[in-house]
Every structure is written in C-alpha cells, then in structure tokens.
C-alpha cells in the first residue's frame, strides 16, 4: 500500500469508528471498499492488516460500540471489509483468532441488533459472507456460525436485493461444496431443507441454477452422496412451485432412477410413487424399479414365468439387480428388506400404482418365505444361490411376513390363499422360526384369516378355513407349550383375537373344542411369566365369553371345578405382578358388559367381590379399571348418562330395577360408594379423574329423582364431609360407613366435583411450569450454590 495511504488510514478509521462523526455519503464507502478489494487482490491481506493495525481496531471497535450507536452504513461497510480480508485463508485464520468474524457474522453480532432492520446492513452482511466463502475454512465457518439458517430466512426478505443476494450466496456455497466431495452431502442436505421449507417462486430460479450441477453429479460413477441427492430431488419434486412447471426435473429423476444402484434407486422410486403429481411414464418406471427385486426372485425360483406384462417390462436392468442380489448375503438381505418395506408403505396409499399387481406380490412374498425356511425348490442356479443366501434369515422373514400381512386385503389374492396358508403354517410350525418371526407369522395369519371373504352367511368361513384350522390348532398347541415365553404370549394373543372374531363360527368352534387349546390356555393362567399369565387371562376371558372354555372333567386339575371365575379371582387377589391382575379386571368388565352367564347369576356379589380386591390393589391401573367396572355396573343399574348434546337421540330410559333409594342403598352396601369416594382422593391422577367422572355421573342420575327427602339434618353430611377431608389428607383408615341414600345425595351435592374435575384436568406438570416454581427453582439453585461454597471452605 501507498505509504501516504498508510499514514492517512488511522485517522480515517478513527473517524469511521466515531459514532458522532457521520459519514455523509455512502458512495465513498463503496469506493473505499473497491480500493481495498484491489489492494487485497494484489497482495497479502494478512500483511496489510499487520502493517495497518488500525483496520482491525476499526472492526473490533464497531463490535464494541453500543448497538444503537453504530451507524448502519459503517456497520455494513465493516462487514463487507471484514469479508474482503477474510477471503484469504491465512487472513481468515488471523481474524478468527480474535473471534472477530464470529462477532461480526455470528448470531450474537449485528444479526441480533436493531440495525439489522436496515436493509443495507443485511446486504453488507451477505456481501461480507459472500467474499469470505472462498475456501473450505470459510465454508465451515458458514456452517458453524449459524449463518446458513439466517440465509434461508433472508431468501424471503422484503428487500429484493437482499433476497436475491442471499439466494446467490446459497448457490455459491453449493457450487463451492460440489468441488469438495465430502461436502456435497452437506450442501445437498442444506438444499433439501431449503426446498422442503421454502415454497416461494424464487426457488424455481435456484433450481434453474442448480440443475446443471446436479446433472453433473449424475455423470460420475459412482454417484456421490446418492442418498442426499435422492432426498434433494424428492424435496424439489414435492414443492408446489414445481407442480406445473416443467423444468427438467422429471428427466433428471428418470435418469437418476436408471443409473442408481438397486438399493439406492428403491427409495427414489418410492418417493416418486408417493408424489401427488408426476408424469405417468416416470411413475411406471419407478414402479418397475421397485418391483424388480421381487421379479428377479420369482424368475429365479419358479418355472412359470408369471404374469407376462410386468415381468417383460422389468427385464431391462435386471442383470444388475441379479448381480446385487447374488453378490453377497448381506446385500441380498438388505435389498429385499428395503423393497418389502417400500412396497408395504405404498400398499395402503391412494396414489399407489394401478393396476396393483397383488398376485405377483403375494407370490413373491410366499416364495421369499419359502426361500427363508428352505422349502423352496428353485429351478435355476441363481435360485439355488438365493436359497443359500436367504435360508434361515429371520430379518427377511420378518419383513416378508409383515408385507404378506398387509396384502391380505386384496381381492385378487383369493386363488393364492392355499399357498399363503401353507407357507404361514410352515413358518408357524418350523422349529427354526425365532420368537419374533413367530409373532409376525401369527399377526400375518390373523390378518389373512380375518380378511377371509366371509359371505353373507356367517356360518361359512369359505372353503379354505376349516382345512387350515384343522392344521393350525396342533401348531398353536405346540406353541402354547414353547419354552420361550414370548412365543407362548404371541400364541395367546393370536388366540384371543381369532376367538373374538370367529367365536361364533361353527367351523372354528368345532376345531377349537376338538383341540387341546382351551385346556392349555387354562394351564397358562399359572405360567411363571406374568405377561403370559396376563395374555392367558385375556384369552380365557374371551373363550369363556364365547362359551368355549375347556369342559374338562380331568381329575388332575382341581382348579377347573372351581370355575374360571374362581381362578381369575384367585389371580386378582394373589398374583404378585400387575399385568395379570389388570387383565382380570378388564375381563371382568367385559363380562359384566356382555352379561356373561357366570356374572349374571349374581351380579351384585360379583361386583362386591371384585371391588373388595381391587380397592386394596397397589397397581393404579387395576384400580382405574375397577372404576370402569363400576361405571358399567352403574350404567346397567341407572341407565345411560344423559346426552349432553341437545339434539342427540334420546334412548329409552332404562328403568332402575327398583326405587332409587333402594338402588342407592345397594350401592352403599356393595361398597361401591366407599370405593368411588376413596378413589377420588387417589394419589394417582387417572384414578381420581375416573372416580370424579363416576361420581358426577351418579349425581346427575340421582338429581332429577327428587322423590327423596332433602336431608333435613345437616350433621350427617358433616360427618361424611369430615371423613372425606381426612381421606383427602391421607388418613384413609376410617371407613365411610353405611350411608343412607339421603346422606349420599347430600354428600354428592356438597362436594365441589366440578372443581375437582378442573383441578385434575390440569396436567401433572402444571405446578412445575408455573412462574412461582421457576422462582423457587432459581432460589433453590442459589441456595445450593451457597451451600457448596460453604462446603468448600
């Protein structure tokens, strides 16, 4: 630099730094910047700064000023100047040492100042960054300083200049990133977010500039950062900006589909098929890509060529697919699992391709399962190798079973039903099936069974079911005896669901009763694993509801004589784990609701016995479920709750079995009232809430019935209230005693149940969120700190 300039520079900097001396004309500042640019282009910026420390002083001075004192012009100038210097990497490092750049461009800098509202400042900020982003360190800085996020928001800036500059900077960043392979991913991710979040028209311009770069990426082999590229393309395609415009996007996607490796192409294909608007040709291509692995499997394993259309169309590129499938066990497993998951995701969507090749998919799923369990007999050497790769692979088995399960709803899969059932049975039967595979197999079987075309006549399950059931129950029997509790559990769940749906079908009842399944289920009530006991309780409950419990006269099982209800009560009172007890109350509630014969025999005794046990239970879910049982009972005795909607159809009122006082007296005698009031003060909120709802219901049902005398003597209510207060305070030892109906009504009315309900409805953390709590916390922290200090010395 000119020595004279060097001499003048400190004074100028001092002027610029002085907020009291305004710079009249910003064109001078622009000129000054141009001059610095030429100087730095000619020589080392680092040297320049070292020789003229006043420049760095100026920059740091701007930061030291009070934000309101900074002139926007000078600030903008300083930002541009700093960027100009930092364009050279060594100078960048130099400025970074003093955290100067972070101060200027970081989140704590001008970005957060009032001056930011001035467009010049924003523009200067962008220009500074634009100059700075010339080298990898600069790029990192952009990423780390949070500047990129700010840039995104600036793209929608009110100032057109600023918005445009922001976009240009983003493009610049991308272009720079593309030169360095590892950063391509990062750049693509940034862009993906951009297109995902921002749907302004300018994104179209951005894409216009980007697409050649993307095309360039597609030429490399292998394609760098393929996953991110797929995400970017899909993000662009999903943006409404591109819905109508043809900007080469579809061509790029088509090209990409054909040159990506099969594993990578799958996710792109799925993304394309999920798009709302997309050319039909591209959709077809994407679907072919997605189906290809399955088509290859079918080709390699079956003599029959299958449905002609799809197989022929997908032949192109299939050699690459076969290579991938056969290259290694892990590649084969990975590709298949991915494909199956993609198709499973697509299956229920309305925009799935049509016609949907249900038959082919079912066939493929069946073949894959056969390859996994080793029962497939392939026709080609490729098939043999597939067999080797997939045999015993439970990951693929699980994926295929999930997929097969979702395929149950198709109409065209009828003719394949025998094959499907055969492979499902084989999987359920095979000793090699892992517990997880068995669970999935049970789920898939259930879906197929429940989706069986059951025509109008309820007694006919179609031609396949009886045959299948005959073979299914021995397998189920074996699985109920499995040494692995997960298997016993899944088998019981399966049985429960199946019985719930088919319990009325003659075929099913016949097959079930002919098997040992009900007896084994009964025995599992005593299983050492609590989950299994719980599932067995549910299953037995279901069987019993349908009249399918074991009619066993075996002398070896004395518990049978006692009846299922006795056995379940035994579990409710004795089981050490919560799950079985919860299951019991749930079953009892169902039984009460369905007027199960054993319950209907003496409902009051039943409810009283259950409540006696439930009220003592330590598990809140058991207590909550107990309240549900009470609610069902009350509804049955007092009728449905009154509809709150004035236009609702009013059901004919259930007339209470006797006069209301009698009913209320019974409720008290059965300890229902005692239970409900106690539950109102339960330490577990859901229980209290449920109790509150229940009492409200009771109050509502008893209110109109004013046949009762208003309590004349209020002292009775006082004693009740006193007891309740004690309960609320945690002293629950004292019983409520037998209340007269009048007392009960008075107590109900005197309690602020609505208030209770409101308090209980507040979330459990409402206390923690209050400002009071915040203050307390802060004080507590201070106290702890003081304590620590005291500890130290």
């Amino acid at each position: 630099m000119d020595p004279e300039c060097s001499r003048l520079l400190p004074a100028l900097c001092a002027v610029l730094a002085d907020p009291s001396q305004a710079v009249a004309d910003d064109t001078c500042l622009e000129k000054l910047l141009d001059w610095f640019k030429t100087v730095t282009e000619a020589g080392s910026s680092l040297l320049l700064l070292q020789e003229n420390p006043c420049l760095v002083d100026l920059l740091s001075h701007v930061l030291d000023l009070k934000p309101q004192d900074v002139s926007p012009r000078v600030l903008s100038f300083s930002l541009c100047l700093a960027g100009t210097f930092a364009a050279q990497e060594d100078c960048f490092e130099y400025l970074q040492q003093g955290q100067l750049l972070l101060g200027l461009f970081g989140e704590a800098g001008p970005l957060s100042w009032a001056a930011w509202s001035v467009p010049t400042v924003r523009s200067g900020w962008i220009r500074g960054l634009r100059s700075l982003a010339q080298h990898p360190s600069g790029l990192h800085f952009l990423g780390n300083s949070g500047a990129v996020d700010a840039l995104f928001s600036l793209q929608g800036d009110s100032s057109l200049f600023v918005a445009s500059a922001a976009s240009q900077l983003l493009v610049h960043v991308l272009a720079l990133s593309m030169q360095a392979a590892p950063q391509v991913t990062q750049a693509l991710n940034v862009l993906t977010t951009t297109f995902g979040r921002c749907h302004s028209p300018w994104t179209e311009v951005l894409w216009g500039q980007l697409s050649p770069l993307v095309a360039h990426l597609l030429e490399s082999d292998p394609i760098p950062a393929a996953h991110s590229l797929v995400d970017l393309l899909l993000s662009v395609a999903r943006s409404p900006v591109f819905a109508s415009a043809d900007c080469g996007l579809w061509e790029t996607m088509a090209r990409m589909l054909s040159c990506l490796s099969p594993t990578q192409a799958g996710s792109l294909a799925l993304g394309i098929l999920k798009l709302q608007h997309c050319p039909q040709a591209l959709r077809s291509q994407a679907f072919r890509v997605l189906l290809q692995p399955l088509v290859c499997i079918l080709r390699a394993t079956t003599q029959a060529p299958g449905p002609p259309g799809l197989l022929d169309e997908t032949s192109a590129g299939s050699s690459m697919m076969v290579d991938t499938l056969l290259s290694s066990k892990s590649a084969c497993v990975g590709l298949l699992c991915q494909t199956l998951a993609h198709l499973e995701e697509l299956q229920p969507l309305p925009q799935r391709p049509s016609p949907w090749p249900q038959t082919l998919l079912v066939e493929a799923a069946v073949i894959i399962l056969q390859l996994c369990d080793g029962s497939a007999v392939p026709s080609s050497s490729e098939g043999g190798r597939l067999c080797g790769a997939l045999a015993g692979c439970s990951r693929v088995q699980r994926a295929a079973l999930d997929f097969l399960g979702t395929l149950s709803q198709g109409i065209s899969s009828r003719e394949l039903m025998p094959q499907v059932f055969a492979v499902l049975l084989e999987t359920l039967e095979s000793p090699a099936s892992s517990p997880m595979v068995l669970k999935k197999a049970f789920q898939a079987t259930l879906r197929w069974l429940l989706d069986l075309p059951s025509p109008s006549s309820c007694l006919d399950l179609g031609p396949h079911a009886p045959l299948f059931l005959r073979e299914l129950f021995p397998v189920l029997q074996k699985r109920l005896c499995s040494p692995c509790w997960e298997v016993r559990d899944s088998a019981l769940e399966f049985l429960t669901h199946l019985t719930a749906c088919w319990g009325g079908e003659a075929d099913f009842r016949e097959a079930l009763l002919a098997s040992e399944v009900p007896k084994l289920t009964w025995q599992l009530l005593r299983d050492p694993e609590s989950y299994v006991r719980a599932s067995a309780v549910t299953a037995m409950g279901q069987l019993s509801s349908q009249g399918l419990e074991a009619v066993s006269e075996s002398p070896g099982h004395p518990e049978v004589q006692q009846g299922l209800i006795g056995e379940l009560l035994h579990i409710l009172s004795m089981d050490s784990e919560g799950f079985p007890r919860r299951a019991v109350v749930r079953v009892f509630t169902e039984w009460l609701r369905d007027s199960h014969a054993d319950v209907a025999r003496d409902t009051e005794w039943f409810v009283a016995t259950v409540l006696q046990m439930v009220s003592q239970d330590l598990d809140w879910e058991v207590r909550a479920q107990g309240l549900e049982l009470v609610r069902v009972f009350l509804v049955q005795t007092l009728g449905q709750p009154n509809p709150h909607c004035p236009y609702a159809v009013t059901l004919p009122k259930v007339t209470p079995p006797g006069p209301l006082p009698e009913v209320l007296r019974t409720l008290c005698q059965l300890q229902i009232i005692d239970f409900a009031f106690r539950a109102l003060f339960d330490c577990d909120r859901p229980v209290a809430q449920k109790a509150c709802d229940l009492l409200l219901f009771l109050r509502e049902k008893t209110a109109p019935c004013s046949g009762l005398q208003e309590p004349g003597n209020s002292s009775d209510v006082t004693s009740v209230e006193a007891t309740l207060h004690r309960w609320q305070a945690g002293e629950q030892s004292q019983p409520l005693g037998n209340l007269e109906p009048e007392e009960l009504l008075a107590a109900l009315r005197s309690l602020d149940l609505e208030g209770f309900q409101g308090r209980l409805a507040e979330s459990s953390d409402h206390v923690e969120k209050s400002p009071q709590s915040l203050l307390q916390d802060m004080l507590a922290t201070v106290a702890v700190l003081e304590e620590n200090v005291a500890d130290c010395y």
Partner: protein
Amino acid sequence: MKLYCLSGHPTLPCNILKFKSTTIMLDCGLDMTSTLNFLPLPLVQSPRLCNLPGWSLKDGNAFLDKELKECSGHVFVDSVPEFCLPETELIDLSTVDVILISNYHCMMALPYITEHTGFTGTVYATEPTVQIGRLLMEELVNFIERVPKAQSASLWKNKDIQRLLPSPLKDAVEVSTWRRCYTMQEVNSALSKIQLVGYSQKIELFGAVQVTPLSSGYALGSSNWIIQSHYEKVSYVSGSSLLTTHPQPMDQASLKNSDVLVLTGLTQIPTANPDGMVGEFCSNLALTVRNGGNVLVPCYPSGVIYDLLECLYQYIDSAGLSSVPFYFISPVANSSLEFSQIFAEWLCHNKQSKVYLPEPPFPHAELIQTNKLKHYPSIHGDFSNDFRQPCVVFTGHPSLRFGDVVHFMELWGKSSLNTVIFTEPDFSYLEALAPYQPLAMKCIYCPIDTRLNFIQVSKLLKEVQPLHVVCPEQYTQPPPAQSHRMDLMVDCQPPPMAYRRAEVLALPFKRRYEKIEIMPELADSLVPMEIKPGISLATVSAVLHTKDNKHVLQPPPRPAQPTSSKKRKRVSEDVPDCKVLKPLLSGSIPVEQFVQTLEKHGFSDIKVEDTAKGHIVLLQEAETLIQIEEDSTHIICDNDEMLRVRLRDLVLKFLQKF
C-alpha cells in the same frame, strides 16, 4: 504323504495318515446304521415280533424265511445285529503305529482294530473320551449280550442271494465284512492300549512327528489333532462345535497355518438349528405329558442328554411339569451322570467356575436330589416298582434295535397319547421306526447336532487358512435331498479334495526340508566368510548321525592314527574314512587381467576366444588351452604337469579360498 480312507461315514471316520515314517490312524468310528436292517432285540418276549411272517421270494421260494422277517412291507434280518467295520483290506493294520481318538463316538470300532489285526501300537485319547467311550461300549455289549439270540443269519449275505432281496437289504454294502458285537473282554483289552493325553500336550512319535490334541468343543474331552514335523503341519478336525454347550470351547487358533486340514464330523443336519430343536423338544414333551401321555427319548447315555436335562431343569417348573417323573435307564446311567460331574477341567468356563463354589457343574444333580430325575440300570428291578405314568423316559439305543428302548416302543407304541422324540441324529428315524409299524404313537424328529455347520466351516477355513482341505465326498456337494442348496457344502479355495471309503489319496504336498542339528563343538569350529553383504558361508565337514528320525551333525573324527588299541580301531571302523580337506574356491576370473598376468609371467602369443559359455585362452606357443566357464575352469595341456601347476596357481590367484 498319503491318506487311506477306511470309512465312508463322514461323522464316524477312520482314516490312516502316512506321514514321514509314521502310520497314524485317525479315529476308528463304527458304522452302526447296519443294525437298522435287523429285527429289534426285545427285553421282554414280544409276541408281535415273534409272529412276524417269514419273507419269501416272489416265486414263493421260502428258503430264507428263517433268516428274514417281514413287517409292514419292510424286510428285516432276524439275527444278532451286526456292525459295518472300517475297511481292513486297504492297508495292513498291523503296521499302524498309533491311533488318535477325537471323541467317544469315534472309537467304537477300537476293539475290532486292536484285537484282531495284529495291531501293536499305542492309542491316544483324553481321559473323558476313554471313560465315556468305555461306558458307550459297555452299554452296547450289555444291550446285546443280555438278549442272547441263538441265530446268526448268514445265508442272506451270499452275493447271489442278496441281489434278490428288496431294498435296503439289497443295497447294503460290504455285508460280508459285517461283524457281531465285541465282548467286554475285548473292550477291556482294547482300552488298556490307550494312553491318556491332555489338551495341548505334545506327544513325540519316534522323533519324526509331534501330535497334539486340541479342544474341539463338541463333547467332554473331544479333541482335534495336530500332527506336525518341523516343516509340515497336518490338522485333523473331527466333531467340533462352536456352540456354547457344556464342553470346553473349541481351540481354533492352533489350527492356523496347516499344510493340510482333514475335515470330518460336521453336523449331520445342516439345516436344523440346535436351539430351535431344543425348543421343539420341550414343547412336544410338555404337550404330550399335559395330555396324559408318555414321552420316550431314545438316546446315548452321554452327550446331548446332559444339555437336554439342563434345559428341562429350567423348563419343567415353568411348564408345570414338576410332578412328572423323568427316568434315565441305561446300564451305565449312574456312571454317566456321575462322570459328567467330575471332569471339571474339561468343561466350559461357566461350569468350571461352579466347581469352586462348590456346586455340581450340571444341574441334573439337583434333579436327582429332588427325585425329579431317577436313573436305573434297566427296566427290571427297582424301576418296575417306581414306574409311574405319565412320565418321560430317556433310554438307549437310538437305533431302536436293542436296549430298553425296544420295550418302551412295544409298550407305548399303541397309544396316540404317547410320543417318541428323536434327538440323536445318527439314525434315520423313519428307518428306526420301520419294524414297529403300524404305530399309533406320535413321532417327533428334533435332531440336535451341535457340530459345525457349513457357514461355521467356511468362517473357520477363512480364519485358519489351510493350504489344502481334505474331506469326505459327501461334503463336496449339496445333500442329495436338497440338491439346490449350494450353501450346504464345503466351499474353499482351492476346492477341497474328496475321499470315499476304500480310497487312497496322495496328499498334494511335498516335503522339502529336514531339520538337522549341529553339535556345539562343531558349530564352534565354523568360520563363516562373508561372500556377499549379509551372506556368510562356512564349510562343514562332519558326520551325519541319524537315530530315531533325528539328524545330528557331529565333529568328524581325527584322521585315523595307527594305534594298537583295539577299542580305537573299532571306532575307526565305524567312521567313514576321512580325506584331507581341500579348501573350497569361489569367485570369477576376469579374462583381461588373467591375460595380463600370463603375459607378466612370460607367456606370449596369447589368444582369447569367446564361446557360448565363457572364454577360451589359447597359449599357442605352449600348445595349451585354458577353458574358463561360469562354473568350471579347465587347463588342457599336453602332459606337462609343471606347466599345468604353474597355470593352475595363476588361476587360483584370482579366486577366494575358504
């Protein structure tokens, strides 16, 4: 190096390795599948078996009806069961120096070899192998001897007659060599020839080779063997397992860098996963017992039964089977259960550490203590008093041809409530059941074979990287029933060499080096000379002394001195004559300098001719010719010894002596 293959059964191998000067037999397995062709030996008179119709030829000729009986379309030999021995004609078995046993299942033919072939060598095996092997043999002898059978059928073995028989009798191989079971006396005599070894113990065989047993992880005391000389290493892998069951884990590292790896004893059910099978076993057992049926488990008295009992120990309470009695019936049941508890050092780490607590390593001790498991030598005696149904019975023999199992098959076969569960993989369960047809009893096949499967083998081979693999031919192609399963075969590079019964394989590997020791005083006398940088040479003159396959270089005797002492004279007779040593020469002769030297020494008229191999220097005046080639120098002169010596000395000046 040759391998003589005496058995065609891949899991019951019997091979002979000729290595250096030794003849080593690797295992002597006994193929007992031959017994499937015979009628069962019932412990209690069985009217059903007695009344089976005799078999007659299609034309009605019934001359075989005493020997052959028909049952449900199958034909059985009504005779004392016989076993198929290893090949005895391929090689003179009296020349076998040692027999290496890898596990107790692979020694069942031992008495036939040691007692009837003139064998005079030693047998090496670990202690558990010998003890449990003895139990298996004892049980076998007991099973057969306690049901004496007068008849020994031989007519059907006639080749011309055998051709007329239905399958599988028609296709049975080597029937003429089938033999009846040995006696206890022969067993004792055979076992007395065994020397006990421990894992990693090095055993010298005649100084020629060293053999070492390594843990193979398959059964108590089961081993693989390493047979090595100083420069060659052969690994013998037989019956190994990588699963965590009761035995010590497999030692894989020591198998590395083998020149040849002989691979036998892989799993017989490569598609079955032992874990799944154990689950299957438990489920079916519980299902049967809960329905009031009995469970019969035909099994050997040792091995998988320990693991099954351990699984049941954990399972019976959870399955509500605590009140169901478990019976283990075998003449050696007691010894087997007790032996298993005392071989702590041969067990896996978990079980070993239990011994220090102290606790019995196997939980079957607790089952016995709590009376859940009871054992009896046979169905006679105490058992008949204690017997309660429904129950679970473990008993032999898995072939269902002899042993207490025959009785239970007859007893329980008629009820569909009962179940027979096959866990031993050695016999086809369908063939085993053939003489009991028609059968109402349920049959469950859950073979538990913990030996290596093909995936594990391919990992193992990648890990240990042998130069060559030798294996039974069955392992080089997929099983016939699953010909498409290319993964169910040994896959390695170079491809494995396959052997079959009665074949001799020349192993593809040449021995190139032999180790020779130098006595210290001889080594002291050596004066190495550096020939090239880093390479020094010394000449050694010594006497090579070879004894017991060890080679030693000893200092040569001093030149013989005439002496009157008789003793010395005798020594000098033994030692070869020792000539005075001449120095060795090395180096090359630069022709130009040589010519100059000749000229200096007064030779003139010298001509040099180049030849294909070097140069010829012509001294025309002296009519002499010096032929200088890379590896020789000749001086050709006409009977002028003086001249030759002069020229020779000139040549020698250019060479180094040492």
